[in-house]
């Protein structure tokens, strides 16, 4: 009977097929975020199980121990102090690197001589694991905030310069030509075409700088500091206080994830045309 109906009315069969496909698509769309959560929670559970079976807090802290350590550190105010110190180091270094990096990138993209003079240094230093000279920076600038700021600048500035220059250079020549046909001068071409067109590249450079900057802060503090999240991790490692060490790592991970997410949000707000 049903078979006969379908034969008589093929559009009903097609509609049913389409509806089935839509249901499948909807299910898949809902399933992927669930899968991601399962992965995260499963990973944490596994970590807890392995930690408990190892049984020694000298080598591995479980998530629950880490959480308790975090709460303790927060209550005592110690954690806030370390975050405050590291946060300042990161913020100043990152901001200086971004401003200087964008300016240098713009100069390199605008003047051939600028590119010739600075280009080899920028690409050379970008490829160098510059973090290796952090001990030297500590030696030069002391164990205060400035040595960390310098380390952060030295690791953040290169992706910013390179992305800014590449972004300006990638400007569609046809767009420049179109604006030129209205009699635009060099400055108008720059502000109305090159700069907005480079914005997605520049923002991507700033986003890449976040992870590198956090590494800079931690490594700088490992080589010499009086406070900071990296300093706290070093202290914890030296006294085999694993829960405290892991607490520090968790703080860094949270900072990296939230700052990168903020950067993504900024990107989709500032460059909505680039979403495709």
């Amino acid at each position: 009977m049903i078979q006969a109906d379908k034969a008589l009315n093929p559009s009903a069969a097609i509609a049913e097929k389409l509806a089935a496909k839509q249901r499948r698509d909807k299910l898949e769309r809902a399933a992927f975020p669930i899968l991601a959560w399962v992965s995260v929670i499963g990973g944490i559970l596994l970590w807890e199980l392995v930690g408990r079976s190892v049984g020694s807090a000298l080598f591995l802290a479980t998530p629950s121990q880490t959480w308790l350590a975090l709460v303790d550190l927060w209550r005592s105010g110690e954690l806030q102090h370390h975050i405050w110190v590291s946060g300042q180091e990161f913020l100043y270094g990152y901001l200086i690197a971004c401003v200087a990096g964008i300016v240098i990138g713009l100069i390199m993209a605008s003047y051939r001589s600028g590119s010739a003079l600075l280009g080899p240094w920028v690409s050379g230093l970008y490829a160098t694991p510059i973090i290796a000279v952090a001990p030297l920076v500590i030696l030069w600038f002391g164990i205060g905030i400035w040595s960390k700021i310098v380390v952060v600048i030295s690791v953040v500035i290169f992706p910013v310069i390179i992305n800014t220059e590449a972004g300006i250079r990638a400007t569609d020549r046809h767009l420049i030509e179109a604006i030129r046909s209205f009699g635009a001068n060099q400055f108008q071409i720059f502000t109305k075409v090159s700069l907005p067109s480079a914005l997605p590249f520049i923002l991507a450079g700033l986003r890449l700088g976040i992870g590198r900057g956090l590494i800079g802060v931690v490594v700088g503090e490992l080589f010499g500091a009086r406070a900071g999240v990296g300093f706290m991790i070093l202290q914890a490692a030296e006294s085999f206080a694993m829960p405290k060490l892991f607490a520090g790592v968790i703080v860094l991970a949270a900072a990296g994830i939230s700052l990168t997410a903020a950067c993504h949000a900024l990107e989709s707000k500032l460059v909505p045309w680039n979403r495709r």
Partner: protein
Amino acid sequence: MESALKEQTTQHAAPAKLTIRGVHKQFVDLVALNDVNLDVAEGEFVCVVGPSGCGKTTLLRIVAGLEEADLGNIAIDGKQVKRPGVDRGFVFQSDCLLPWRTVISNALVGLEINGRRNAASRVYTQSLLKLVGLEGFENYYPWQLSGGMRQRVNLARALAINPDVLLMDEPFSALDAQTREIMQTEMLRIWNAGRKTVMFITHQIDEAVYLADRVVVLGRRPGRVKEIVPIEISRPRSLAVKRTPSFIAYVDAIWKMIEHDVRESISEEGDHPKPKRQRDAVE
């Protein structure tokens, strides 16, 4: 070519809106244009056709001031022009809209550059968007529009500065065949509303015949004016005109004028892509 020159001087005794005199342009290894002369009268629609590599785009770019001629000069209303300016509006082959600007903002960019963006010019631009059939799309972004709609914005942007002469560089060549036909009728409708002086480059003979008052046929190696064909088909022209015997006769006649050049350019492109190289030199 001499007959063409004579014809053009006798036909347009009145001072022309746009004059092209003795324009010569050479690239590294080829003469792109040699002694090109052309007068375009006020309100006239002139189409320039020719095989690839005849320098038709180069000629238009020189008129626009985007490129400099080695010899000769360009004048609008008898006043020599060398650089881009608001007396000429350029419609590009690719749409070239700024992706971060909305339709209305893109259409206003020429006015903005010349410090003429204000409430009145905005109202005027809005009326132009309506004229080109984009009413209601003012706040869309280019990527939300079809190719044909983007070219409408491109046209509105060029018209917004209210130029004396509209320069169009194969504006419909990137569109599919059906959209192109529609855009051609739209072009005539829009042109009829203001009767701007138009210099329109195309490689499609039927497009040229359909749109133009006169078709300028360029030859290649070197690029030069080969012939000027007045199109005596009454306006307004509907698409049905394209199937009339007189229309077909015009297309055939012009095809015969350039057929040899086209074949030559095709056989040369085989060994080394000439138009590409010319393009590189241009940019």
